[in-house]
């Protein structure tokens, strides 16, 4: 408490997050997908980005460990936009400490779907498709202008991204103080948007098909077109549903599920059932 003379603590001795802290978290969040794994996806990087700021909020080691464990959990969204959400989480923990733990987790989980849906389609598909085709066509003619144009756009996005934590933190405080329970409606609405996009992702991201053919003398009949007539993306739906079933109903761990999928893939590939 001897630090209370700094202006960094409020009258109750709670740490007030500074712009410098948020900038630091922003730099550390550049780690983003670098710790990607199948169990917690970007969870490790979230803990890495937030650890200095949380250390200042939680002076007690046990509280700090608990707060970090909350952030080590499964997290996966579009990293360029994630800073906005993480900045808002910092604001929640700054105001309420560990009492905000569950709200922080719900908020993160509720927003990561829509953020990934919008971010992936806009930043990871639309821009690379448009700018990429312009840059590529010009490059094929030996012209560098298209590349420079795309590069300029990337630097603008980067500049905006480096302010994501500050923006989220500011808005996060506002969300808590002004909007109160409206955050529940927002999370509900975000879940609707998220699930709609996830429904589309199942059909478009998982591209597994079957090359199996039945032979009747000279006539060969392919299975895949038949499946497509019954239900397009039938195999992706089945695989996703089965994974979901094992995770929720059978309480199988993520690691075992991944090992199971890899072994399954080796068999299916060896016998030519899926490709």
């Amino acid at each position: 408490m001897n630090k209370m003379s700094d202006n960094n603590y409020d009258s109750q001795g709670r740490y007030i997050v500074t712009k410098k802290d948020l900038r630091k978290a922003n730099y550390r969040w550049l780690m983003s997908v670098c710790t990607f794994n199948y169990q917690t996806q970007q969870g490790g990087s979230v803990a890495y980005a937030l650890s200095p700021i949380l250390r200042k909020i939680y002076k007690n080691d046990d509280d700090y460990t608990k707060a970090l464990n909350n952030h080590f959990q499964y997290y996966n969204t579009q990293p360029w936009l994630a800073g906005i959400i993480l900045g808002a989480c910092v604001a929640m923990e700054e105001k309420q400490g560990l009492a905000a733990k569950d709200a922080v987790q719900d908020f993160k989980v509720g927003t990561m779907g829509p953020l990934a849906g919008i971010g992936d389609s806009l930043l990871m598909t639309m821009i690379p498709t448009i700018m990429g085709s312009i840059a590529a066509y010009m490059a094929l003619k030996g012209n560098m202008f298209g590349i420079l144009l795309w590069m300029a756009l990337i630097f603008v996005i980067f500049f905006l991204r480096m302010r994501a934590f500050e923006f989220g933190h500011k808005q996060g405080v506002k969300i808590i103080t002004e909007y109160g329970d409206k955050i529940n409606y927002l999370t509900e609405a975000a879940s609707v948007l998220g699930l709609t996009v996830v429904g589309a992702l199942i059909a478009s991201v998982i591209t597994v098909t079957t090359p199996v053919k039945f032979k009747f003398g000279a006539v060969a009949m392919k299975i895949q077109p038949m499946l497509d007539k019954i239900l397009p993306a039938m195999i992706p739906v089945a695989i996703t549903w089965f994974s979901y079933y094992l995770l929720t109903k059978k309480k199988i761990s993520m690691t075992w599920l991944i090992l199971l999928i890899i072994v399954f893939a080796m068999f299916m590939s060896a016998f030519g059932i899926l490709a």
Partner: protein
Amino acid sequence: MHLTVIQIIMLTLLAFIKHVDYYGIPMLFVNYPVFWGLFTGIIMGDIKTGLVVGGTVQLMSLGVAGFGGSSVPDYGTTAIIATAFGAAVGKQAGLAIGLPVGMLGVQLDVIVKILNGFVVKKSQEYNNNHQYKKMNAILWLGPLFFGLSAAIPVFISVTLGQAAVNFILKSLPSWFMGGLTLAGKLLPAVGIAMLLKYMPAAKYINYLLIGFFFAAFLKVPIIGVAIFGFALAFAVYKQAEKEGEWKKSLQNTQSFVGEDE
């Protein structure tokens, strides 16, 4: 194929930087081949080839993006190798060597993501033991693994050349290669299932079906589905807000009645 030692070092380093950038630090040029073709062209002293090969690979990769952590062919590494060989022996030969290595990238990607699972688990263990410095430090293995997963194939390709690449590809059993490729396609399902586990999927299964219907039957691109999803979300928000205010006013009347008694 004549490369100087400095060129080999710089190409390996470029691949390392590219992949660390792709996965986050600082995530500028992601894995977009047109940039990495150009940078390789500068190292090789042949910008023209860098532009042409980078542009060719960029067009091949259009629409390919690793959503939600799915593993996709490493077209960025393809661009580096294809440009390096392209500058020395010609564009077509360059692509013939670069493409298989890019495909091999899917397998390496899956392996690194499995390894990272152990790294992050260890980091959380350090957190539980209050060893916070180690907790932060060990996470740097992540970018190191990702960097090496591109740097090693590039180093091997540019030092040993086409014969070596073919030998490695041939000596791996086909069930292993095919299996890992298929696993890379299947594993996004696990990520999506995990997402669904954390989202109110059972409560709002109707929206899941709507999204699926648009993509699978009508072939609407993701951005189109997102716009439709936003419209639905907007309606849900308005409805929830209305109900919330109604409940609040109901509570207010009841407490008013209570006070009156």
